């Protein structure tokens, strides 16, 4: 199932972050790699997982490999639901804080 692969790909915080960045703007693998405290190879591996879930496409441009988001409606929806879930996690933390204050 494509959707399962999508959720697997998005289960990792670094991959979610990479996807968020390339949704905003296409980027080279090396530019992405500079943004994380991990090796180029590790970032490349994350990109490959996103690629196998068809969330991004890689394109050679001169010496650079450019990563672009490639989201059909369903994959896009999966990615977005994932981001929306993050918002709810924050909300639940917020409610927890309020409940802890005055009981």
């Amino acid at each position, binding site marked *: 199932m494509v959707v399962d692969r999508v959720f697997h790909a998005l289960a990792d915080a670094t991959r979610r972050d990479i996807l968020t960045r390339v949704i905003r703007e296409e980027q080279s693998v090396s530019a992405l790699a500079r943004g994380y405290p991990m090796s180029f190879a590790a970032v490349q591996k994350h990109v490959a997982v996103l690629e196998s879930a068809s969330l991004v496409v890689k394109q050679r441009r001169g010496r650079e490999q450019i990563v672009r988001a490639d989201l059909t409606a369903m994959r*896009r*929806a999966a990615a977005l639901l994932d981001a929306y879930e993050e*918002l709810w996690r924050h909300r639940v933390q*917020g409610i927890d804080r309020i*409940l802890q204050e005055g009981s």
Partner: protein
Amino acid sequence: MVTSHKDVENLTLTFVAEFPAPVGRVWQVWEDPRQLERWWGPPTWPATFDRHEFTVGGESRYYMTGPDGTKAHGWWRITAIDAPHRLEFEDGFGDQHGEPTDKLGVTRMVVSLEAAGDGTRMTTVSHFTDAEHLEQLVKMGMEEGMRLAMGQIDDVLGTA
């Protein structure tokens, strides 16, 4: 404890959380606008509710203020209330005056609170109209997530 279920085809997100507080207390974080606005917005987009009619047919108006002062307006229209167990409402985007705009999608929300042991289980189900609508909705949240991630990277690099 938090669990969620995403139904991509039907564009719904079911989110279940448990709180160590009685149902009536958790109900208050929805009912009281001063408590509600402390958790509704994403972390650096705090919400301000300047209207909150917590009754069937009642409407709310709120805005969320971003780090650069940008205001994002939203509204609620309450469609069902069974205090302190069930709340249903529509949540939509507002124009710059905070009034509802029909151009963008409306989220239908169903919130249920039930006793679970000494605490409360809260289930929220969000129904979205289409993926575009969802995209609008998470844009701020994603930017926020990105900023948080960047901050963490800065911390790591700063101490390296």
